[in-house]
């Protein structure tokens, strides 16, 4: 690859800039200027490779790191510039598809706000100086604070931590599926079972945004496409505020925040009583809880009436195999798994996952528990040196964790980042990180792993900022400095990775390596897990608290797009309207019209939302997709230092959250009680469409599922 490097650099420096500049001239009036002889320059290659032809795009396989799902991508490279990303059809995860966050990875790479040079404090330094500074300052055990990390980067991180006296790794993801994972672990003994939405004929989700941000959205959406094909599956979503999944549900049920579990148990109750489904498969503790959950109780807890419960039960019964998922709180997930156990979905639509054989390649998923622990340990002074990469704790930490004070207690804070953000402001050393399109790596996608698939990430183009280094290279360097064993004979991460993968596929031949690069994935040996029932499981139904007078329950929702805020600096995603509210370039608070009427609010009014931990002011968006007791503010905006596109846009609802954590999972709660007060200002919330009605036009027509079944039965209109 070292030989192609030089070519690619030529590519970039050479034809690339000229091409782009010319493209900008577009068809404006004075475009003839470019026609003058000798006006433009054209460079030639030194020694190009056979497949490199100017004017013809070459596709390289790589991996998308925009979210933990780790989809495989194909990048179109022409004249040394990565121009477009598409899904990699070879992967089992996304099967050639990509979501808008993946499409926008290009702007992460080309972002004008990238960090170009290392800096200590405010002044720019060389790598040598920075590393020397780190070496000097790093006393005691280092801690790594990252997002979800997997593959050989994880291995090297362990190597570094072990070599430097067994520090801890904190994987932080605000948007995660920890509740679901621990529930699965407790009920069926497999934290990451494989889900087959495409096999299911009905799916019920209790507070899990399966199509939007949950575990592996693109995979689930691809499955959903099959799920909707003949015979058409039925999707039911129970949640306090409408997510992308809820917007696509046949039957969307608004439950009071924190009461989805009650609804789930109510449905189980209805199944047991109306359809006499046996609860023998359940642990007795859970079965008892089900029978205490009478429809009346469910209504008082969640505000969901009996008819709805029995309708959901009926749907589940009449369309099997079914699949029930739940997230948001441990109880939701356990109750969902209880339903799966009752309906016999275990083994049908939920199958065991697999363990990669070098187990340390597996994905270390992030959690907010880790975030809380990090804050706690930092406060208590257990962390002397922190290496932060791929995480923005200052922005994502709920206000209750006092992350800033916690960081202040750490002597050495090293940020390895692509962009200046809220966290780098608090760091002593900031090292420029290469973008995912410039870096090597391997990634074990959470669900691809079930097939033992590891996605390989390779550079699509030469580094935009020569001083930026890949995470792997930095980890390798640190591990080598720390004197980790068996790493000394690798001069860069590429060498290490190639050796490791060659070992994995059992051959070191160039051809095999090229095949791996072309496929963009490597088949790692994996051992299938198996389910184990857990009889002693209990579930304690939360007394979901109806808000008191003048109070509302704040929900911080995540949307595919800005996600947890890491994509707020990508103009494409800022300008891509939010799926539900269609708002752009700002934050908003979703309120039910009746609630708004009670508070005397109308669309576009500014409100001040006050919680025990903070207050923020934003505009409201009225619609019926949120529970009357709730007010939902999406995450992602409200950055203070995050480049020209994100800074001082919108508000960050995480600032309102407290530190209270879930007893079973240790996850920080994403809801809190707030007071809402109108400020009196009103400005139109900029969005794609302020009209939600079709005025009798046939724009999005809808037919009933019965008609569709008739179509599918006579083999017509299935499409």
């Amino acid at each position, binding site marked *: 690859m070292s030989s192609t490097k030089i070519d690619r650099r030529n590519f970039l420096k050479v034809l690339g800039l000229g*091409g*782009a500049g010319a*493209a*900008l001239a*577009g*068809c*404006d009036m004075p475009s003839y200027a470019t026609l003058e002889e000798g006006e433009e320059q054209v460079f030639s290659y030194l020694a190009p490779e056979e497949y490199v032809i100017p004017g013809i795009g070459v596709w390289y396989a790589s991996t998308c790191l925009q979210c933990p799902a780790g989809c495989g991508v194909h990048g179109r490279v022409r004249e040394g510039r990565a*121009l477009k990303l598409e899904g990699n059809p070879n992967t089992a995860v996304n099967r050639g*598809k990509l*979501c*808008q966050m993946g*499409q*926008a990875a290009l702007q992460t790479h*080309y972002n004008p706000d990238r960090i170009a040079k290392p800096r200590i404090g405010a002044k720019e330094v060389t790598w040598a100086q920075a590393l020397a500074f780190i070496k000097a300052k790093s006393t005691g055990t280092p801690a790594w604070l990252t997002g979800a990390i997997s593959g050989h980067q994880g291995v090297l991180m362990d190597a570094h931590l072990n070599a430097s006296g067994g520090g801890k790794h904190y994987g932080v993801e605000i948007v995660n599926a920890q509740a679901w994972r621990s529930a699965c672990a407790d009920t069926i003994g497999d934290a990451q079972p494989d889900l087959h939405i495409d096999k299911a004929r009905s799916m019920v989700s209790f507070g899990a945004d399966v199509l939007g941000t949950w575990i592996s959205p693109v995979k689930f*959406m*691809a499955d959903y*496409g099959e799920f*909707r*094909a003949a015979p*058409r599956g*039925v999707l039911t*979503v129970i949640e306090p505020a*409408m997510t*992308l999944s809820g*917007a*696509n549900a*046949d039957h*969307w049920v608004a439950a009071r925040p924190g009461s989805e579990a009650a609804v789930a148990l109510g449905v189980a109750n209805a199944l047991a009583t109306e359809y006499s489904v046996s609860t023998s498969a359940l642990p007795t503790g859970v079965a008892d809880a089900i029978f205490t959950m009478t429809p009346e109780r469910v209504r008082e807890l969640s505000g969901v009436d009996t*008819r709805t419960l029995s309708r959901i039960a009926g749907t589940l019964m009449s369309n099997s195999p079914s699949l029930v998922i739940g997230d948001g709180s441990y109880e939701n997930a356990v109750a969902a798994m209880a339903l799966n156990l009752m309906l016999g979905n275990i083994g049908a639509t939920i199958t065991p996952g697999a363990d990669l054989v070098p187990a340390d390649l597996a994905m270390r998923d992030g959690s907010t528990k880790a975030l809380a622990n990090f804050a706690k340990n930092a406060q208590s002074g257990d962390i002397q040196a922190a290496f932060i990469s791929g995480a923005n704790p200052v922005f994502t930490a709920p206000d209750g964790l006092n992350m800033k004070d916690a960081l202040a207690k750490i002597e050495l804070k090293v940020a390895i980042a692509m962009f200046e953000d809220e966290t780098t402001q608090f760091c002593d050393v900031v090292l420029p990180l290469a973008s995912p399109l410039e870096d090597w790596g391997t990634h074990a996608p959470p669900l691809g792993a079930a097939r033992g698939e590891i996605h390989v990430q390779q550079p699509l183009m030469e580094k935009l900022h020569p001083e930026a280094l890949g995470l792997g290279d930095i980890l390798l360097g640190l591990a080598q400095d720390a004197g980790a064993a068996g790493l000394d004979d690798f001069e860069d991460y590429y060498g290490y990775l190639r050796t490791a993968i060659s070992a994995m596929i059992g051959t070191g031949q160039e051809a095999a390596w090229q095949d791996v690069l072309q496929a963009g994935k490597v088949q790692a040996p994996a051992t299938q897990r198996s389910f184990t029932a857990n009889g002693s499981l209990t579930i304690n139904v939360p007394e979901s608290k109806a808000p008191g007078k003048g109070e509302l329950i704040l929900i911080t929702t995540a949307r595919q797009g800005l996600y947890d805020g890491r994509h707020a600096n990508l103009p*494409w995603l800022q300008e*891509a309207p939010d*799926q539900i509210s269609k708002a752009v*370039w700002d934050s908003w608070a979703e309120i039910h*019209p*009746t609630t708004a009427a009670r508070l005397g609010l109308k669309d576009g009014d500014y409100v001040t939302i006050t919680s025990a931990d903070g207050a923020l002011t934003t505009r409201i968006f009225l*619609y*019926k*997709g949120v529970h009357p007791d709730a007010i939902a503010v999406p995450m992602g905006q409200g950055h203070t230092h995050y480049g020209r596109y994100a800074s001082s846009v919108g508000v960050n609802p995480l600032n309102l959250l407290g530190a209270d954590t879930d007893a079973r999972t240790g996850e920080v709660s994403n809801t809190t009680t707030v007071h809402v007060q109108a400020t009196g200002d009103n400005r139109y919330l*900029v969005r*794609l*469409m302020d009209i*939600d*009605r079709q005025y009798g*036009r*046939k*724009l*999005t*027509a*809808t*037919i*009933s*599922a*019965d*008609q*569709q079944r008739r179509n599918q039965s*006579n083999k*017509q*209109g*299935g*499409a």
Partner: protein
Amino acid sequence: MPSLLGNIFKGWAHYSKGVEEGGHHDYEHMFAMVIDLDRCTGCNACSTACYAENNLPVVGEDKFGARQAMHWMRVERYFDEPDMDKIAAAEETDTQSRGASFLPMMCQHCNAAPCEPVCPVGATYHTLDGLNAQVYNRCIGSRYCANNCPFRVRYFNFYDTAESWPAPMDQQLNPDLSVRSKGVMEKCTMCIQRTRAARDTAKREGRALIDGDIQTACQQTCPTSAIVFGDLLDETSAVAKIWKRQQVKLGTYKQNKENPDLRGYRIFEELNVDAKVLYLERVREV
């Protein structure tokens, strides 16, 4: 007679021929699309893919609020269901109990496009591939076409767009199509640059274009495979099959289907614009 008069006569003959054949000239292809609204989740991936593929400028909040955004592919969201309410009213009228309705809306490449006859300089016209093309460097920006478009899918460069790509973002610009300057009308071309590339490849390999050679950016990225693109003249193409199965025909403003339950419909068909994007109705449990 060569040259001027010759061209005029030739043009007239061609035109009258087209009139006799109901406006269908000698098309080489008839590229059309199918969008399954039951698969579409409204996730916006198509729109962003379009931004990446077609050098669409980002305008920012103010201009977006002034409705000067340039999204060729916009995903609309509606909260009412006119047809559904006839069948069964939502059981809880105070919640969005059947979710939202999403509609990916881009240029429908009408065969009887209202935008084409009104352009004073013929900058928008119908190609032999059955696409409604926009020649940017011919456009003088009279904006008549956009006024006459019932779908409102033509976007005008109200400002110079250079500042949308601060360095090094300009390196991402797709060199296969020009960056439009201010005062030019633009719209979805169904990724005509990909058609061009595919045609060259096919010629290089000495074969005809086959189904699957061309994938539009939105189709390729759509996570639920809700978008299908292809050639209607090619009986074997997926698109042609779906149109046939849905019993929807071109060249009419009133489809007579044997099976009224079929989901295929074209938006504003009654205007007789003869759109080439077939939408499949969204399905909901009652």
